[in-house]
């Protein structure tokens, strides 16, 4: 019986010939990742375990991205815990303000992720790295502590579901729209505990930024991971960023999937997820009149240079609606610098948008754009639960960068076609 790509990567990291869904394994990790809100607990538990040194100081990655540049004294104390630990342990990959970015945009950019890797992170969007053909999954702080101490994580092998996308994408439709559409169809628990394998001709043509967006949101369907089989696009991306050799796996022809779902993308229009679940996805033309107070373009989901280019194309020569606050957050310093070089930041500023240093900030209601009671935001982020971006009565709609930019101009949620 053949194996899926996720089963192969898992087996390789557990020292086994093969694994099946339901098996429990102890897997060695290529990277154990934490951030400024999850690593403080992990570091506390690491010490409780009685460990003195991390298993490998090249493989524990800490990124200060959530409440940074620090939003208050408590957040500063948490960042300090990371900083002190990174220094004590002499971690090779510790990324602080001014040198960092949102972790899930940063790690691929820095060449830290390779196809065939097994990566755990104390952040639910760790599944992002599946875009590069890695088996990457989110865990909690105590799991991170155990991995820092032992280099291993306990995992149950998930069933795999194959999502096949065929056809040519319409104008303004990208990875965000595909994943919102999919979660809209299957629900926020539609892939609970499963490996979501994204395939098909549409995916084969999807640039890396779109793949990152799709795999990033696998967790929003309950997925253990999202993954796209490495191909020419993957290798091109990886080779520009590291000399390390990838391990290339692919699902066998006779691999067993729990089920296979097929989508024809020709009829998919830009999607918007209404409050308060990511599964409330609709085509943007179905929305009616929804006025907004704030637009956020950024996050680990859509903060890449490609996303900013899409937004800038729409905002060039236009102005943000007088009732709207536009906040643009390039996901990493490198994206920020590139956007600056390309003149995109000037477009955003001339449009009366606010441009921020990389941070998770408003995505989780932390800082850099928190909402007041009754306010409504449209964001290229990944969650719109009640209270996600601010007051309990505020609302968050989710979309890709094209709809976000157009809506910032219109003052209401709309397709770029309308402006």
């Amino acid at each position, binding site marked *: 019986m053949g194996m899926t790509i996720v089963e192969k990567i898992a087996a390789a990291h557990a020292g086994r010939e093969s694994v099946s869904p339901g098996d429990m394994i102890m897997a060695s990790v290529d990277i154990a990742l934490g951030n400024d809100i999850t690593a403080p607990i992990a570091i506390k538990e690491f010490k409780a375990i*009685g460990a003195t040194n991390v298993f490998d100081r090249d493989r524990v990655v800490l990124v200060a991205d959530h409440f940074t540049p620090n939003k208050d004294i408590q957040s500063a104390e*948490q960042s300090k815990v990371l900083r002190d630990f990174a220094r004590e342990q002499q971690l090779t990959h510790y990324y602080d303000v001014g040198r960092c970015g949102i972790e899930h945009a940063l790690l691929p950019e820095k060449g830290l992720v390779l196809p065939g890797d097994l990566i755990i992170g104390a*952040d639910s969007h*760790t599944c992002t790295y599946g875009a590069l053909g890695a088996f990457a999954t989110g865990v909690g702080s105590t799991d991170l502590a155990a991995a820092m101490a032992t280099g291993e994580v306990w995992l149950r092998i998930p069933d795999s579901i194959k999502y096949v996308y065929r056809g040519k994408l319409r104008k303004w439709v990208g990875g965000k729209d595909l994943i919102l559409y999919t979660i809209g169809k299957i629900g926020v*628990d539609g892939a609970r505990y499963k490996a979501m394998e994204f395939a098909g001709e549409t995916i084969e043509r999807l640039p890396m930024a779109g793949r990152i967006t799709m795999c990033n949101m696998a967790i929003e369907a309950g997925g253990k991971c999202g993954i796209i089989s490495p191909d020419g696009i993957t290798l091109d991306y990886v080779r520009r960023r590291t000399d390390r050799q990838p391990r290339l796996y692919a699902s066998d022809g006779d691999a067993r999937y729990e089920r296979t779902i097929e989508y024809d993308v020709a009829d998919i229009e830009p999607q918007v997820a209404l409050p308060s679940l990511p599964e409330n996805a609709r085509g943007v033309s179905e929305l009616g009149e929804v006025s907004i107070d704030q637009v956020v373009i950024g996050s680990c989901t859509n903060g890449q240079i490609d996303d900013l280019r899409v937004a800038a194309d729409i905002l060039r020569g236009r102005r943000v609606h007088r009732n709207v606050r536009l906040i643009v957050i390039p996901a990493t310093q490198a994206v920020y610098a590139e956007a600056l070089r390309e003149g995109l930041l000037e477009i955003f500023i001339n449009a009366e948008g606010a441009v921020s240093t990389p941070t998770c900030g408003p995505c989780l209601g932390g800082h850099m754009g928190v909402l007041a009671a009754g306010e409504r935001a449209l964001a290229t982020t990944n*969650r719109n639960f*009640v209270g996600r971006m601010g007051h309990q009565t505020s609302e968050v709609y989710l979309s890709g960068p094209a709809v976000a930019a157009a809506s910032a101009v219109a003052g209401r949620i709309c397709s770029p076609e309308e402006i």
Partner: protein
Amino acid sequence: MKIKGRAWKFGDNINTDAIIPGRYLNTVDPDALARHCMEDVDHGFAAKVKPGDLIVGGKNFGCGSSREHAPIAIKAAGVSAVIAVSFARIFYRNSFNIGLPIFESPEASGGIAAGDEVEIDTEKGLIRNLTRREDYHITPIPPFMEELVKAGGLVEYVKKKLGTAD
């Protein structure tokens, strides 16, 4: 293990932003987190919950973020157990790792109403609704999870493995 208490009822998809909103993640102090437990779904919960109370949810309990602050807040609020139709996977593993008892039981979730007195008998694998005189089955957990529970959580498990246990 026997657990007994009054049930609080919640719906489907109780996510980790509802359990502990992002704005409170600038602390790791369990008592500080407990004060804001379930704040955005039931503002009065944190003040009214009594030690030993149980939370009963629907499908996909704990979905969303990986924040361990979520089960920590629930445990620190004095909740003795969470029962749900199903759990999101990161919340599931976090709960076992930190020693918050959680039980998967569609029957129990359907049968228990807010305020019911509930007892859990883990030896028998049963949830007893003392108010309605009904018993419900608990979905069995994999042997490895049993080991984690017996060890007292992941930290203790790893300590034993590494030989750093007292």
